[in-house]
């Protein structure tokens, strides 16, 4: 089988000074040039960043490759180089076939033009030929579900309609190689599902896809292979479920406690500041891992800086290894009381035993006030702490004597009633 994409030692360097100059004025740049010529230059603008460093991989024809990594890891730069929007500093890449790239939906939409006119404009921008667009026009309009508004200028569209039309054009792009960046993260859930279905059909027809996403479930579901990029380098390349698991585990490196010694830099606003968050066991000790049969506490320390009309309370959100939300929970006890007096509070949420599934868990925390129906997050921290749930396999957890993979965000130990009826 031949390769659709071959990437060899691809590197891309950005000069920090250069990037800053882009936001500066001409005068700044002239003074800097003058300083350099007269030898008075300070070395501050010589700093360089390698957004990509010696990246090599190949994608076979018909393969669906997922690219994962944190923000700023180099995923988008990789995509920008492969789509030729920017050129690499060194290395090379070869792409064989008609390429379609989707770095966002609705690129080049003009708000003065009608829906129909924008289909033609956007289609051309995405690389479709006029005949091709004409042939697909009916399908595109039908898929968008906004037939009635095709002759209305898109500036009169709601944002939902806009996205539907934009995605509909994108979904009808039929290149041999598709490079996609996170575009599925738009629209309502039902529409997203439809788009995902469309992607699956697309990859089912033997076409090559390179897909950047933050949604691990989508990566698992759609991709044949995944690569994980960090700091501009490939960390791992292999089976998507392995790569996803390793990636998620690594991003839990923040550990099971975090604190902000300086109030000024702590997350929060004029009302509340987060001071510390810890994962503790029943004895009150900080733990990295917890037995599935034991309760685990998320202890938050925060400062209330002034009086407010409503109580100030803690809220947590637990996410599983796939990045799916297991649950949201908030301190309902404080909520029921009167306003909180200024001072330092410690609030601990106890997660009951036999609730979470095994594996890494991530906790987002927030300090909130409630002006019903609005919940205001006054201080918040995503991925504040992490911990891992393990099951020693003694047979008294929900796993019983089973040792294989038990899927699910939660894994409660249920009451089973069984009787023989015949």
């Amino acid at each position, binding site marked *: *089988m*031949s*390769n659709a994409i*071959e990437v*060899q030692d691809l590197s891309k360097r*950005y000069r920090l000074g*250069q*990037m800053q*100059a*882009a936001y500066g*004025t*001409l005068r700044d*740049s002239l003074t800097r040039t003058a300083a350099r010529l007269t030898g008075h230059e300070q070395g501050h603008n010589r700093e360089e960043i390698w957004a990509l460093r010696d990246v090599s991989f*190949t994608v076979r*024809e*018909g393969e669906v490759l997922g690219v994962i990594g944190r923000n700023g890891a180099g995923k988008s730069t990789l995509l*920008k*180089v*492969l*789509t*030729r*929007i*920017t*050129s*690499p*500093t*060194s*290395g*090379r*890449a*070869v*792409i*064989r*076939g*008609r*390429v379609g*790239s989707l*770095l*966002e939906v609705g*690129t*080049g939409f*003009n708000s*003065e*033009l009608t829906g129909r*006119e924008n289909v*033609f*404009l956007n289609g*051309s*921008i*995405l*690389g479709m*030929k*006029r*005949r*091709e667009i004409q*042939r697909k026009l009916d399908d595109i309009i039908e898929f968008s579900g906004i037939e009635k508004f095709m002759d209305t200028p898109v500036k009169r569209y709601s944002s939902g309609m806009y996205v539907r039309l934009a995605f509909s054009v994108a979904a009808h792009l*039929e290149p*041999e190689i598709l490079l996609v960046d996170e575009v599925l993260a738009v629209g309502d859930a039902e529409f997203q599902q439809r788009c995902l279905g469309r992607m699956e059909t697309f990859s089912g*027809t*033997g076409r090559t896809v390179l897909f950047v996403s933050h949604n691990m479930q989508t990566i698992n579901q759609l991709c044949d292979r995944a690569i994980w990029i960090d700091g501009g380098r490939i960390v791992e390349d292999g089976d998507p479920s392995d790569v996803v698991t390793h990636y998620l585990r690594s991003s839990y490196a923040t550990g099971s406690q975090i604190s902000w010694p300086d109030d000024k830099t702590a997350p929060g606003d004029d009302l509340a500041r987060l001071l510390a968050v810890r994962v503790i066991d029943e004895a009150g000790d900080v733990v990295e891992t917890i037995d599935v049969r034991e309760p685990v506490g998320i202890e938050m320390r925060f400062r209330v800086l002034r009086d407010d009309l409503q109580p100030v309370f803690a809220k947590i959100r637990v996410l599983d290894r796939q990045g799916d939300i297991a649950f949201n929970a908030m301190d309902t006890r404080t909520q029921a009381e009167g306003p909180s007096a200024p001072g330092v509070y410690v609030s601990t949420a106890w997660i009951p035993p036999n609730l979470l599934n095994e594996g890494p868990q991530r906790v987002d925390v927030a300090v909130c006030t409630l002006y019903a129906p609005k919940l205001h997050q006054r201080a918040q921290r995503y991925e504040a702490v992490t911990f891992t749930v393990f099951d020693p396999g003694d047979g008294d957890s929900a796993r019983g004597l089973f040792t294989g993979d038990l899927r699910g965000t939660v894994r409660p130990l249920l009451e089973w009633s069984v009787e023989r009826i015949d």
Partner: protein
Amino acid sequence: MEAHAAIVRCAGQTGASSSIAAVSQTQLEPPPEEIIVDPRDDEAHLQPDRRTVVIRPASRWPHLDVRELWHYRELMFRLVWRDVVVRYKQTFLGVTWAVLVPALTTGVYVIVFGKFANFPHGNTAYPALTAAGVIPMQYFTSALTSSSTSLVSNLQLVTKVYFPRVLLPLGAVVVPLFDLIVALPVLLVLMAVYDTWPDSAAVATAPAFLALAVVTALGIGFLLSTFAARWRDVPYMLPVFLQVLPLVSGVMYALDQIPTKWQWIFSLNPMSGVIAGWRWALLGEAEPNWGQMTVSVSVALSLFVLGLAIFRSFEPRFADTI
């Protein structure tokens, strides 16, 4: 669909290799099955598109890939179409403005410079002389302004999709040609009123002088849009330049009425050549000084070549610096 995949795979096995040598071979010989594979006949037009793209660091020497430009001609057409369609959207008078603007400008010039200041106009009636200067000058102003800002005003495209960026300034100088065509009746009416008709052979050269304006606008447009991709000074700088330009291009007076020594200096400005040429071609004025015209054309061509070279050499970095 299955059959499609199977054929590609079989054929692929022979060429499957990750070495660079194999890559360049594939480039030279596109696998033959690609032309016959696709069972969906109506998509056959997709096939010629199939090609190998090699991405590598941008070369130091700028060159213009004409084949690639040709490949993107439909996008160019679509971008021009967009700008033409959008131009007078949500205006009460619509495309009438394309006639009104030169007509009103000519009117003001006639009153201020023709009547009060009594500018020299040679043998031709002042209103016709001025209109023949105003119309190409208005084209140039519009073309230069939009080509200089073309990269920035299409920022979303530049940072999100690939296409030869040359299309943007190029499209920007084409769009105002539509205005110019719509404005021509203003000149024709004045020519009829003052009964100044051109030499029939000279008329044929009018498009050539217009082309001189296009090339000049494009050359400076390349330079300024490259500059504007990094610094946003252009929108402040350009209007000053464009206000002075009609004064030194002979829009409101006949150039051959000024001292010859000055005429040579003015010929460094290609727009003075454009206007003198137009008046000769359309109004039957005296033949332009061909020596001065050669200077104008050389300046325009140098600007064009220089502009294109600079534009192309900065092109790979536009998406990073814009």
